[in-house]
């Protein structure tokens, strides 16, 4: 339940923002991290940014998601054969 995903802020309007993770975009709130700017990467939990993180940290998670997606695709491919 305490999972959070890193995403990049691509738009900001007051305490609302649009975040992008690997091409997926959604609206979040940046109420808890008022210092963030467009271009920053944040950890998002339950619709709220909870911390600013660096590029490296985000890259590690995104890489992991890609691996999981590839594994899932492979598994699906096998089950269809």
């Amino acid at each position, binding site marked *: *339940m*305490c999972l959070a995903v890193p995403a990049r802020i691509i738009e900001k309007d007051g305490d609302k923002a649009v975040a992008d993770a690997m091409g997926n975009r959604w609206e979040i709130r940046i109420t*808890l991290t*008022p210092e963030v700017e467009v271009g920053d990467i944040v950890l998002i*939990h*339950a*619709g709220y940014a*909870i*911390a600013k993180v660096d590029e490296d940290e985000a890259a590690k998670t995104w*890489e992991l998601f890609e691996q999981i997606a590839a594994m899932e695709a492979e598994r699906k491919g096998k089950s269809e054969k």
Partner: protein
Amino acid sequence: MSIERILTAREQIEAACDKAGRPIQIMEVCGTHTVSLFRHGIRSMLPKSLKMLSGPGCPVCVTDQGMIDVVIELAQRDDCLIATYGDMIRVPGAGGSLETQHRGNVKVVFSSDHALALARKHPDKTVVFVAVGFETTTPPTAVALRQAQAEGLDNFCIICGHKIVVPAMAALLSARNDKIDAFLCPGHVSVIIGADAYTPIVEQFGRPCVVAGFEAGQILEGIARICTQIADQKPQVESVYGAAVKNQGNPVALQLMDEYFETWDGPWRGLGVIPGASLRLKDEFSRFDALKRFGFAEVPTEEPAGCLCGRVLCGLIDPPQCGLFGKKCTPDSPVGPCMVSTEGACSAWFKYGIK
């Protein structure tokens, strides 16, 4: 994640365990860590003398059954909409779960913000937000309350099951639980409360506290730091999740929590009452309290017969040692909360098999 990092951490763990010369038991407090340990096969990579114990850090698992029963009762009313995180809907209460007992008025939300949107959209209903979770989900609840106040959304209220982690860790140790040698501390709770929050655990109980994120390399590095501290007999607070966790946490979030909530000695499912480990709304915000609004007094709770979730959550037994595990209690037909949540210890043991 680099293989080198994983191998280095593993070597450090082995060397430290040898040096310690005794069995080591580490409690991973957080349910997300429990799942990650299984999913990455980390348990099988650890020396035999090192054991990981699953802790009470799954919010669904520790939500009091009395609260679930109240939510289910509210779900029977035509004038209520229940807004809940998806994890909660399958938890069994005394007479069924939200999944089986609702009448179309239970809405799964991903954020407290969505619960507020429901209140705006349905002015004729009272929206009850099931506010559960630790310090990660509590600040978003506080933001929603502030927003409801600002907009005058009188049809929004919460049933508060928020809990805080550090007093629960202290309670586990105070109960003379000598099985726990150290804590692997939750990554995202620590983003909010900061690594310094664990200092009392180190000072009072002499147990290492190391904060880690959720990928395999980081978990192993966290375990390596703990084992090294134990081998060197130098317990301290450390973080291997510096990218997101600051010593002081997130000050905005902490201030908001403090503004709306106060601690009290509330019940944790399976564990009983833990001093100062539950949160409730401060008196001045009691109009947002669903229990007061609908006139619920305190609800007595009864644990399901034979369920040993409490002992599992304290790290006293592994899930397969419970007589119900895998027989009467499975993820399809759970008896205890640790089997319901995907982050519950019993569910993870059932899904990923026994070490």
